């Protein structure tokens, strides 16, 4: 396909944002409608990726390649494979929901808000499409600018502290990665081409140094314990749309970075660092979960649950076998959907109550039954009830990590129990306890809000009941990735068969509608 669809996906929202700047300040409604139209169109443009994606090859697709800065051999090089395609689609989808949830809750500088959101969308998609390390870095950092403004301008009372912390944490990590990128460029034959860089062998010592340099950037973004402390602040203070983007897309980029860069380019270091990474992930799972139990702030609780869930993701990725890695990627999507939905819900309820304290709530199920049903579904998906998407992802991760190191799966499973504990307890405190008289006469969800939830509900059941439709996209790419890591197409440490066959062996164990 010669049509530059990826460029269009990246620059359409950017151009749309610039156009939006041209609309008059007073025409708030026009701004909102136009932002919605742009985000919808963007999603429509992204749909061909779903239909025309070739699932039988690990090669990059929809490739665009042009020379950019000749002096450094930097290229404008875009392409997607089975690992990135779903995230591009998710980004396009989530942005629509963000526009919808911000419809009434954003009251000041409305135009600037939607401009920032659209610029952010362009940069996010750029991150997932870039195949040139320099280009990737440009998008990766450019993302900081709109996100900094989203939290800082439209956030809660403590927003300035939160946004500065977010910015500085990310910037330090990114700059250390930049040093790593340049080193890699010099060692890897003066190219920033990710695929070419992955084909070479580097001395193990260098790999380890680079691994930690990349770790600095990716682990902060994921966020892995112990560099997670920016996330609760940023999540808590961000406006609803900011929290949703943060949960659904932004923090996925850290895990994506591990998959796209650390693993294929630095395979020996990845294998050598497997145990430390698994341990860090486990600490994140258990620690994040336990902290959740002690939270009194609604958003903070969900933020810490992200730390715990992202621990599962990195656990899956670094367990280094087909099931676990596929589970990790699927769990990234799941977490994006479920936590995104939870933050959407919190945004809606906050718009009505203007409080985030859990103890202020109680008995909401009486006043808002529809909302309570939606939130129950999201809660159950979050704790991994079979039939929902959370179950599939966690099962695959546990299965895979059990094959690698049984004790890891044992500890990780305890995280699931803690997860069920804090999520259900949260649900009880908000929706069931004695009815708080303050919320009598609270508005039930409107049509716009229900529409906002629907895509998430569909995705939860779709992935929960028929995960293969997503996993199909990944099989070949993940198999190829693991070949790169192990350098051995025949099998992994655990002796499990790799590739499509192995995945097919797992699939019958999953609940599904077809076959």
């Amino acid at each position, binding site marked *: 396909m010669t049509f530059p669809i990826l460029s269009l996906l990246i620059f359409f929202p950017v151009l749309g944002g610039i156009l939006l700047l041209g609309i008059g300040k007073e025409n708030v409604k026009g701004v909102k409608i136009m932002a919605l139209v742009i985000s919808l169109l963007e999603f429509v443009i992204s749909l061909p990726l779903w239909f025309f994606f070739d699932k039988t090859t690990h090669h990059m697709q929809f490739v665009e390649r042009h020379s950019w*800065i000749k*002096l450094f051999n930097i290229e404008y090089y875009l392409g997607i494979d089975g690992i990135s395609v779903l995230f591009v689609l998710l980004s396009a989808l989530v942005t629509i929901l963000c526009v919808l949830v911000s419809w009434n809750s954003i009251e000041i500088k409305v135009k600037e808000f939607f401009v920032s959101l659209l610029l952010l969308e362009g940069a996010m998609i750029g991150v997932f499409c870039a195949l040139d390390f320099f280009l990737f870095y440009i998008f990766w*950092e450019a993302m*900081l600018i709109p996100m900094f403004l989203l939290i800082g*301008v439209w956030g809660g009372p403590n927003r300035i502290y939160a946004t500065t912390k977010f910015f500085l944490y990310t*910037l330090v990590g990114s700059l250390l990665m930049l*040093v790593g990128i340049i080193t890699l460029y010099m060692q890897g034959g003066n190219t920033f081409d990710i695929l070419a860089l992955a084909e070479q062998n580097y001395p193990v010592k260098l790999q380890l140094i680079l691994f930690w340099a990349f770790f600095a950037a990716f682990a902060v973004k994921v966020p892995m314990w112990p560099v997670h402390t920016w996330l609760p602040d940023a999540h808590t203070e961000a406006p609803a749309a900011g929290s949703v983007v943060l949960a659904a897309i932004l923090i996925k980029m850290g895990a994506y970075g591990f998959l796209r860069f650390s693993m294929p380019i630095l395979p020996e270091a990845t294998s050598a660092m497997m145990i430390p990474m698994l341990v860090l992930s486990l600490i994140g799972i258990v620690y994040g979960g336990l902290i959740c139990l002690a939270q009194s702030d609604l958003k903070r609780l969900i933020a810490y649950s992200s730390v715990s869930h992202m621990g599962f993701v990195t656990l899956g990725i670094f367990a280094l076998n087909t099931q676990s890695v596929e589970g990790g990627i699927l769990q990234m999507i799941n977490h994006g959907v479920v936590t995104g939905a939870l933050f959407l819900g919190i945004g809606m309820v906050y718009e009505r109550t203007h409080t985030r304290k859990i103890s202020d709530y109680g008995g909401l199920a009486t006043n808002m039954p529809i909302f309570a049903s939606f939130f129950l579904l999201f809660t159950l998906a979050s704790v991994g009830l079979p039939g929902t998407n959370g179950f599939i992802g966690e099962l695959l991760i546990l299965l895979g990590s059990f094959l690698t190191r049984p004790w890891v799966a044992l500890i990780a499973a305890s995280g699931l129990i803690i997860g069920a504990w804090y999520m259900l307890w949260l649900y009880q405190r908000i929706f069931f306890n004695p009815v708080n008289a303050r919320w009598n006469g609270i508005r039930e969800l409107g049509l716009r809000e229900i529409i906002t939830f629907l895509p998430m509900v569909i995705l939860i059941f779709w992935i929960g009941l028929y995960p293969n439709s997503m996993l199909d996209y990944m099989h070949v790419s993940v198999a190829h990735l693991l070949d790169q890591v192990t350098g051995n197409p025949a099998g992994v440490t655990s002796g499990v068969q790799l590739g499509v066959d192995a995945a097919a062996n797992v699939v019958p164990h999953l609940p599904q509608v077809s076959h």
Partner: protein
Amino acid sequence: MNMPFTLSTLVPVLPEIFLACMATILIVVDFLCPRNREMLAQLALFSAFGVIFFLFYQEPGLAFGTMFIADSYSVFFKVICLFGMLMTTLLSGQYLKVEQIRQGEYYSLMTFSVVGMMFMVSAADLIVVYLGLELMALSIYCLVGLLKSDARANEASIKYFLMGSFSSAILLYGITLLYGLTGTTDFAGIAKYCSETDILKNPALLTGFVLILCGFFFKVGAAPFHFWSPDIYQGSPTSITAFMSVAPKAAGFAVIGRFLLMAFPESHEQWGSLLVIISLLSMAVGNIIAISQQNVKRMLAYSSIAHAGYALLGILAGTSEGYSATMSYLLIYGFMNMGAFGVVILMCSKGNRRESLEDYKGLAKSNPMAALLMLIFMFSLTGIPPTAGFVGKFYLLKAALAAGYTWTVIIAVIFSAISAYFYLRVIRYMYMDEPQDEFITQYSPGLTAALVISAVGVLGIGILPGSIFDWAARSLVCF
């Protein structure tokens, strides 16, 4: 050396001669039609433009024996200096009106200082360096004190004069030591003498060498020779501050580069580690002290100290890649800093300079365009893509890494992250606070042009840096 003097040997100096003539004409015009300030600005613009245009077509050549070299390296820096003058002239119209500076000498002095800089960057002999440096410095001392009724400006001018004279004396002392030991002030001659004897180990020579560098570091405002800059930046007329932060700095770096490369090419190991210390110290002092500043001009002064530190990263690498990185960075820095000072001038109105950071509170609400521009320049100074500040910094880091200064680079990026704090604070004030007083910004045509050029430059170079990098690399072919 004893070439017969004919007029044709002066051809390489033509741009300088032309500019010096224009500077004189500016005085005469001011004398003949004292009411027509606009014309002075137009004349200054015309001269700067004309010389830039001429430089691109100039044949490389030598003048005054081998004392003066017109080569592609000097052209690059001359263009930066002239660009600084051009932008300052554009910025000045509105500022001079607001501050009611009536002196016709303003443009003339600025032009003279640029002539001095052009001699500096073309100098292949310490005497010419000194002459150019003094011409530049004396003109700027006067410019700094133009606000005669303002106590701060007077203080700045006298302080700058005293400290500048002191640094010139140190420089001169260094030159005499070097001359006494090697018998020449010619860069190439010094290098030749050093390679033929083992004088490089002579402590007196090292002293002379270090003293000369101290003089240069003073001019570029690198720590620990930076103590003048915050006071002078704050006290000077803002347009002159903008000028000082770009043009003299570029000229200073040009001299440092040529001096090290031509006179001491073989002792890179020694001066490399010396520059590492100066560079890191500048970043530390600049970025850390800037955090506590409440005045925009002072903050930008400390930021310029830090940026001098970054720019040194390329020179300390001692490679052609490093040099071209430093050159590109100085040009990029010219764009973003001129833009930032342009916004500072935009804020200024009669009787209220609004130089405090507090004055920026809520700017996004009262003047969204000014705030957006400042946002772009601040992110560029921080070095966030897709702005020019990022690609410039990237090139510097890459060059220093390629030369093996890994730890220096790691410390540099950490300081760079620290710098984000105070640049972001400006953005925070503009976008995340409520406005204090409503005021309407005036966009004069000159100021608008300057802001547009800066913003387009910052974003354009940020997205397509190739041509700037290529030009810088090509300019080094002459070595």
